[in-house]
């Protein structure tokens, strides 16, 4: 069976902690995601997302603190706007915007984190491997 590959950019304070909590709670989820820890989700710029796709990621997850909870006060609002614009542009590139996902996971939401990865993996399975068109 085709197994999608996912890069997950996780903020240090909430979503990485949520991923840790999923572990301490032994919540099982598919092993398709590889995490890259950043201090704040706002560090991620669309170039990283495109680079992930170009380097073989079928999906990219960005996870941060809930709106209002950002450890750096307001970083996640920027993340959200970048994400919305990015999705719009991905569509123009012919890439299904569902391949890019933004989620808010608090450090108490281990279950939610596991669910997000599970859902995303399943969705990407139905979307199939990413196609990037180089043409001739």
């Amino acid at each position: 069976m085709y197994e999608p590959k996912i890069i997950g950019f996780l903020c240090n304070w909430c979503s990485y902690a949520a991923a840790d909590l999923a572990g301490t709670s032994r919540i099982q989820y598919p092993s398709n995601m590889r995490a890259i820890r950043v201090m704040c989700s706002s560090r991620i710029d669309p170039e990283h997302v495109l680079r992930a796709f170009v380097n073989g990621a079928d999906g990219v997850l960005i996870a941060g603190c809930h709106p209002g909870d950002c450890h750096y006060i307001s970083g996640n609002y920027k993340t959200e706007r970048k994400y919305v614009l990015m999705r719009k542009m991905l569509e123009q590139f012919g890439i299904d915007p569902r391949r890019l996902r933004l989620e808010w996971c608090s450090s108490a939401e281990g279950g939610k984190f596991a669910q997000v990865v599970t859902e995303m993996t399943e969705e990407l399975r139905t979307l199939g491997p990413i196609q990037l068109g180089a043409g001739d």
Partner: protein
Amino acid sequence: MVGSVMVVGGGIAGMQASLDLADSGFRVYLVDKAPTIGGVMAQLDKTFPTLDCSMCIMAPKLVATGRHHNIHLLTNADIINVEGNPGNFTVTVKMNPRFVNAEKCTGCGLCAQYCPVEAVNEYDERLTLRRGIYVDYPQAVPLVYAIDREKCIGCGLCENICQAEAIEYDQTPSEEKVNVGAIILAAGFDEFEPDTKKEYGYGRFKNVVTATEFERILSASGPFAGHVVRPSDGEIPKRIAFLQCVGSRDEKSNKYCSAVCCMYATKEAIIAKEHNPDLEATIFFMDMRTYGKGFEQFYQRAQSEYGLSYIRSRVPCIEENPETQNLLLTYETEDGTITKAEFDMVVLSVGLEPPKSSQELSTVFGVPLNDYGFLDWKIFEPLKAKEGIYACGAFSGPKDIPDTVAQASGAAAMASGVISGERGTLVEEKVYPQEIDVAEQQPRIGVFVCWCGINIGGIVNVPEVMEYASTLPNVVFVDQNLYTCSQDTQEKIKQAVEEHNLNRVVVASCTPRTHEPLFQSTIREAGLNPYLFEMTNIRDQCSWVHMHTPEEATEKAKDLVRMAVAKSNLLEPLKSSSVEVTQSGLVIGGGIAGMTAALGLAQQGFTVHLVEKEDHLGGLLRSIRFTMSGEDPQEYLATLEQSLRDHPNVHIHTGTTVERIDGYVGNFTTALSSGEEIRHGICVVAVGGQEHKPASYLYGKDERVVTQLEFEDMLSKGVKAKTVVMINCVESRDDTKEYCSRVCCSEAVKNALKLKEKNPDTNVYILYRDMRTYAFREQYYDRARENGIVFMRYDPETKPRLEKKGESLVLYAHDAALDLDFELHPDLVVLSTGVSPYDNSALSQMLKVPLDRDGFFLEAHMKLRPVDFATDGVFMAGLAHSPKFIDETISQAYGAVARACTIISKERIETEPIIAEVDEELCCGCQVCIPMCPYNARELDEEENIVKVNEVLCKGCGSCVAACPSGAAQQRHFRDNQLSSMIEAFVRR
């Protein structure tokens, strides 16, 4: 004198006090009865009014407390004796055995997986079970397991499974004597136990729960993983009732108001509603006491946005339908009709009681308790238990988290004030060897893969991962460890670094959030810069979550190691730079907040400039004639002013305003209207507020209509009136001012009682919307009713009307409780108009700090940073922040002192190593980065047309770096090439 402080209680108050003390040069012993710190806040799902995730905002403080080299945790401990005097106490602490060696335990949790014994989980409010060997919650500090010997059957399974050999069944209690200069009591509170209120059926009816139980039910980490279901059958409740004042404002249990329940019930109802939008949530209450900053707006939103129902009624009893286990409430509505309603679940908003240990603490420390069993304190000394011993948080009365945190910092300031001369004498600094210069070296990477007992090794094929790591570019050494975090492994890592000339180290084990500092410290001991370290998480985010697919887990672990190695190739040593600090303070505003802050800073040994725009000190306190508890404010003010004038460290600038403020934390320069220029390291904003002057109720048109402060002045001179009517919430909680001014209800009661005391025959009416005499102020409300003061509630839709008929004043009022119209003929009308901020816009711009929507200053974080601004080095206290009482203002002012001392107690401030930087060759001065920074760390150098990073202010989030369009900005340790290297290594090639 001894330069250390003992803090008793490791909840949020104890942690905050400890951190402030430890960060300003004192050694701290933090004692907690429980095996872990964290207190009640660790149990909460979210916090009001911002609905922040409680654990998210608290975890950084937990970790900081656990890691601080100057905070010594004494958990599972009781205090049995105290001797000595302020400045030099000897405290005897009994260390109870946890039967697990704290040095050896790695917190891996294997023991608990194998333990066959089940016990009630107190952390989950008895809704779940835990094992006989346990840790309260996953993020616990210290992360060391403990054996519950009452439950333990001594089977020895944990001892056999623990490969760290940490189990010690034969531990016995021991005693430790600790020498400290001051003591802070932060013992918190215990909940009212509703079993005694038989009428509510708690304990008999499964679907009647306490608010704390409901908090756990709401929590994603709670018993039902965040699914809001009722305990009896796991069904999703469609109708939930919240009963307020259970164990509060109650003749039979506690007379006082618990101060937080109205807000937490509203919060819990909102969260429940967010889980299930179809939920009908009803809150039964007497007075809605949403008095704090942002609370009233929260209450309004609860109704308008979330559709919560509020019913003003005290429910006398609950019955259960035995078939459905639904609950039947019979209650009397305000119009007198008896109504029955069925609910699927009932939440009891249980009150806050003194901690069970309060009597014991009182005896051991010799500190007084009040009638309710909380610590007793005086209005002008709200933090003092007795000389050298201070108190904060709910131990001195029910209060919410921000008030608790402000008090905790305040108590830290009081405690360190006693021993300020000993600052720095007991601080331990770890000495590391000279760093090896790796700049010209090819990367030589060592990879250490951890078994974590069988936590990782039982799933992930560790030898295979290790073997794979050895094939990666520039990896010259690989090893596997049973426990990479154990003491002997640290030695192994150091040896490997030395023997193989490693200049990068990668550890694949658990989470960097807890263990990175340990390994960084290890490689520092081996002469490497701590930032030449990279960690990847193959336990929490791999072996533990892919337990049934070991091959996949092994592949993932390899990928993660490859990504970490890729990044480590590009790691650079990071250094923090340091900036000199002007070790003095500026306090803006010479009211009670500013005066207290100035004196506090002076007592800590720092020069302080106190600037006041009026010609005299005192601010709003000059208008206060009485206090509820009978002290004389003017006498206190005079003493305080004298102490300031006598103190050599204090420079008072009255009749002076601030014209310009330049600089940043540690290095401000302020120009005063007097032409003077002051250099200072911190700034406290204590500009106060003013009594609102209304435009309604004939105020200003008829001299028989006055405000509360004007009336207070009249009272001090003598009032002749047969009938006095007070109207509360005038131009408050409405379109003029959305917020509640917190103090007016109590102010009205205070003045009414004073009037009755002076003229017992005067008829006094108080027209109110909700009486918000929270916490112990409830007793004065009780007394007022006993003294014949008439309380009449009005609704905002049927506000009282005041008219002038001939020469007489006529007041038409509709009593909402009786649903009757009244006509009163007052000789005097007193308006409770609330507190307004001054126009703070100029100062907010000068300091580059924000105001809230009401015009008060906006703190860095509503919950946990109530006296800080997001901009470092600027603090606030008093009415500048929001309306509050004198004791609260004093607490907050001392809080600002403690927070300021964490900066000006140091000669130099160290910058964070992970911060943003700018390549000046590339920056074009477009300034996109500037509005990204909430800390004002980005500033344009106009001469060079380049935006620079103020390294002292930068917190290293990287949002400016991502926003920088030209690639001129980079974040150290998270550079684009470092992140890209991980992305490029993501797929095995």
